[in-house]
Structures are given as structure tokens and as C-alpha cells.
């Protein structure tokens, strides 16, 4: 565990030195700029739009970090041969993989937490800009803590995307890893269509294949409860917990696969 933490802290340090956290400035600037512009254009709907946009931005910025850093995590070490010095030390290959993953997860956590703080700060400011009569017409207060479960699931989704990117990066090039990761993410958002595929095709093998893929591929759509929380619709706690556990189980499987592949690799 000590070794894993040690590797993870180093990955976090790399992210900071590579100026990954600069994206937070971009996020904050975007949110503040949009809030200001909307304030000039619409009345009453501003808060809902900012909520929509803020949650989507947290997910998108996180996704970009997860994919583009995730695909290079292992590849860069192998390509630049820094792995030679590292693996000759008392560290197992499994600890290396898990440590690398934990480091990027820590980077994402810091990102998501800071983005969430900025998001709520902008909403709190907007809240002061409206009279009580307008505020009372909103389905939920501007700084509704009910949005936090959506952010938790966004974070779990990012953990899953990171695990997919890391899995592919243990055996393929960054370009291929990026293409496969993004491809899986897109398919995962249309996962429900695979389930219903048998209703629209007559071929039984095709239906079985679609059903098999439905169970095999990660269901990213399940993590998306942004619309519900923005409209203050109830989201059962059990759903959030089960979905988070589903994501974490998938992460565990992918990391196991990454460790198995990485442990057999020759570093020529």
C-alpha cells in the first residue's frame, strides 16, 4: 500500500507540473462568463441553465483529463524507458499499475472537488442576484445540495473512463487507446439501445450478440442523472450507491485485466 501511495503521489505531482490543473482556470472562466452572458439574455431560467452547463462542464473537463492523461500513463513510461529504472526497484508490476491509476484518480478528485466548489460559488452569487419572489418559483434552491449525487456519479464515471484508458494503454499506442476509450464511452451512453435491439431485429444471433454486448460493455448512461437533479426530481440514494458500486466493480475488473497484461509484457 505504501508503494502504491508513493507512485500515486508522483503521478499527481507530474499532473501538477504538466499544468493539468490549469483546466480549472478554464472551467471557472467558462462558468463565470456564461453566467454573466445569460444574465443579460434571459430571466428566471439563468440558474437552471448554469446548473446544466456546470454539471456538463465538470463531466467534460474530467473526461478530457481521464482520457488524455489515462492513455499516456503507462505508455509514456514504457516509451521513454523511465520504467526500466522504476521496475528494477522493489515494486511489483501490479503496484505500479494500481499506483498509476490511483495517482490519476487523485488528480481527478482534486479537479472535480475544485470545479464543484467553483460551481457552487457561481450559483451562490447568482442566488443573490434574484429577488425572493423569483427564487421561490424555482423547483430547487440555486445551491441545491441535491446536485451532489450527480457529481459523485460523474466522478465514478471518470474513474471508469480512466480505468478503460489505462487498460488499453498497457498494450496499445496512445492514439488507439484514445480511440477505443472514447468509442467505448460513446457506446456506453447508448447501452440501453443494445438491450432493446431484439425488439427491432428478427435475427436471433444478432439479438443475442446485442444482449451480450449490453452486459459486457459499461453502461455509462446509468451514471448520468444530471437532468433529474437539475429539475429537482427525486433520485433514490439506493440508485446512486448501486450505480457507484457497479462502476467500481467495473474499475476493479479493468485494473485486474491491466495488471495481468502488464505483468506479462516484455520491455524491449
Amino acid at each position, binding site marked *: 500500500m505504501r508503494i502504491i501511495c508513493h507512485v500515486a503521489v508522483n503521478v499527481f*505531482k507530474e499532473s501538477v507540473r504538466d499544468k493539468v490543473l490549469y483546466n480549472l482556470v478554464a472551467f471557472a472562466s467558462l462558468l463565470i462568463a456564461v453566467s454573466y452572458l445569460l444574465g443579460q439574455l434571459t430571466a428566471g431560467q439563468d440558474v437552471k441553465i448554469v446548473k446544466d452547463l456546470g454539471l456538463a462542464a465538470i463531466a467534460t473537463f474530467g473526461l478530457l483529463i481521464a482520457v488524455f492523461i489515462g492513455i499516456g500513463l503507462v505508455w509514456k513510461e514504457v516509451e521513454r524507458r523511465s*520504467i*526500466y529504472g522504476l521496475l528494477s526497484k522493489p*515494486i511489483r508490476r501490479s503496484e505500479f499499475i494500481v499506483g498509476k491509476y490511483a495517482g490519476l484518480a487523485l488528480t481527478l478528485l482534486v479537479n472535480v472537488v475544485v470545479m464543484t466548489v467553483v460551481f457552487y460559488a457561481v450559483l451562490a452569487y447568482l442566488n443573490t442576484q434574484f429577488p425572493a419572489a423569483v427564487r421561490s418559483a424555482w423547483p430547487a434552491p440555486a445551491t441545491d445540495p441535491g446536485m451532489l449525487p450527480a457529481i459523485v456519479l460523474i466522478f465514478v464515471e471518470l474513474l471508469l473512463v480512466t480505468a478503460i484508458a489505462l487498460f488499453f494503454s498497457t498494450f496499445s499506442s496512445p492514439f488507439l487507446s484514445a480511440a477505443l476509450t472514447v468509442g467505448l464511452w460513446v457506446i456506453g451512453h447508448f447501452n440501453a439501445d443494445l438491450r432493446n435491439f431484439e425488439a427491432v431485429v428478427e435475427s436471433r444471433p444478432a439479438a443475442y450478440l446485442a444482449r451480450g454486448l449490453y452486459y459486457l460493455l459499461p453502461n455509462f448512461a446509468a451514471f448520468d442523472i444530471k437532468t433529474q437533479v437539475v429539475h429537482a426530481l427525486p433520485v433514490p440514494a439506493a440508485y446512486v450507491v448501486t450505480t457507484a458500486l457497479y462502476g467500481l466493480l467495473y474499475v476493479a475488473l479493468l485494473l485486474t485485466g491491466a495488471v495481468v497484461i502488464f505483468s506479462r509484457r516484455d520491455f524491449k
Partner: protein
Amino acid sequence: MDAISTESLTKHYHIGFWRPRPYVALDALSLSVRQGEVFGFLGPNGAGKTTTLKLLMQLIYPTSGRAEILGRPVGDVAVRRRIGYLPENPYFYDYLTAEELLEYFGGLFGYSGADRHKRVGTLLDEVGIGAERRLQLRKFSKGMLQRVGIAQALINDPEVVFFDEPMSGLDPLGRREIRQLILKLRDRGCTVFFSSHVLSDAEALCSRVAVLAGGRLVAAGDLSELLAFQVRGWELVVNGLTDAALDQAKASGRVTQATALGGQRFALELPLSVVPADLLAGLTAQGAQLVSINPVRETLEDFFVRQIGAAPKDRGLGEVAR
């Protein structure tokens, strides 16, 4: 117990995409390195030296055979607590400073706090990294990176250290410092296994060497024994040698080469078959005096060139399969 031992250690690769052909990177290497010695692992580029080191570090897995370090299989993580490794042309995390890199690696061995910091400082001093230790490694020259690479290999005070081309990228002063460092390591009981194609370094440092060519071990043993058996003649330095006496000695075929050293002083090279005393008797009768007599021994370079020249070149699997 040997510091390092390999038994029929073999590594094949498959090259080519559509029709992969086997390529023998290392063929049945059996080797043993005793504790506390400086062992030179020599061979031209592509001989299989780095492949062997990677197999010993388990960066690659053998096709067959086995390897042990300090009596334990190379895959054992506990063994890695007791060894150090400098890769060829080392590259480290360029966003870290030299100090941070060593702190990071030190942490993997469980060092922490002031102890780790002190150890890092001492090692960087030892390899000649001064104020630059607080610069990011991306600003380091090749020679400085090599020094950092050597320091990181020694962070755990290893019992066995593996250096892959340790002198690469170093200036003459740096090479001398690293030579001194290797001897210092030997003096404190550390086994040093280093690969090189710089033979003068091996000759100056090693007690034993192995020569690898085309993935095969072509010679191994005590350096003094390997070269002592290859005395190829004698060198006589004589004074007061007249031209007539010199011509006569040359004409007899007993002198293969005569080099004028100044005045009537000459260095005469005799083949091994000539008894120096017989020639000397003739020369002294003509007024010459003996200054010195020495056996002309083969240098490591001569030995190396001869061994490499004799080694088979083909590395396809069919050629080496036994």
C-alpha cells in the same frame, strides 16, 4: 553463494509482422559472478548485453533457462531491495529534480525523512551533481543524467550493482570519477556487474570478464588468465646497437619489428618461438647492452577482436538450435 548466476538463459524474439521470424537475442547463457568482484560483460553493439541485463532485472522474461541473484530467483521482489541498476542511456521523469527523483526512488525502498534526504545529498555529492540537483531533469545534459542514473542505482546501498554502459556520455574526467567510484564500491564489498564496449575501462576495473557476441558467450574467465595465456612474443630494449648488428638480427628473421627509441637505443619485438637469451647473446657480443626484457601480452582489445571475429554471425533460430 554466487552474486549472479545464469543457467542456459535464452531469449528469442519474433521479428516481422506478417511472417514473424525468430531472432535469438541471447542463446543459452550460463554465467556465474562471485560476490565482491567487478565483472565486465563485454561485447559489440547488439551482442546481447542489454538483453541479459533486462532479463536479470526481469524487464523481459526468458524464453528458457533461469537466473538468480544472491541465490534468489530474479523475479523475487526481495532481491530488488539488495540490488541497483543503471539502464543504458537512462531516462527519468523529466519533471522532477535530481533530488526529487532520488527521494522518490528512496521512498520505494522505505527510506523517509531526514535519513532519506541525507542519503540523497551524499549520493549526489559522490557522483558530482552540485547545485544542479534542484533543476528539473529535462534541463540535464546526457552526462549529468548518467551521473544521476548512477546515483539512483546506489540509493539502497546495494550488494550487487548492474551498470549498463556506465561510461556512456561522460567526459574523461567523469569517466575517471566513475572508475574510482566502481573501485570504491568493490572495496566496500559490493559486486559490480557492468556491460561495456569500452575495453580500457574493463581492463582497468575488472577481475573477470565475459565476452558476448551474436547472443552467445564466446569467452569468460579471469582477465589475467585470459590474457596471460596469450603472450604473443617478447620485447627487448637494447642500447648501443649498431646498424650492422640490427640488420643481421632482422635478416635472421628473429626480430619482427625494430623501433628506434633515440640514439642507438632500440625496442625489438621477437616472436614467441624465439628464445630471447639466444638473440641477446649475439647482440651483446657485438657491443649492445640489455635495458629491459618484457613479454608482449595480448591486450583485452586484441583478445576481444579475435573472439568477436571468430563468433558466428547468423542469429536465426535454425542456426543456433542444438
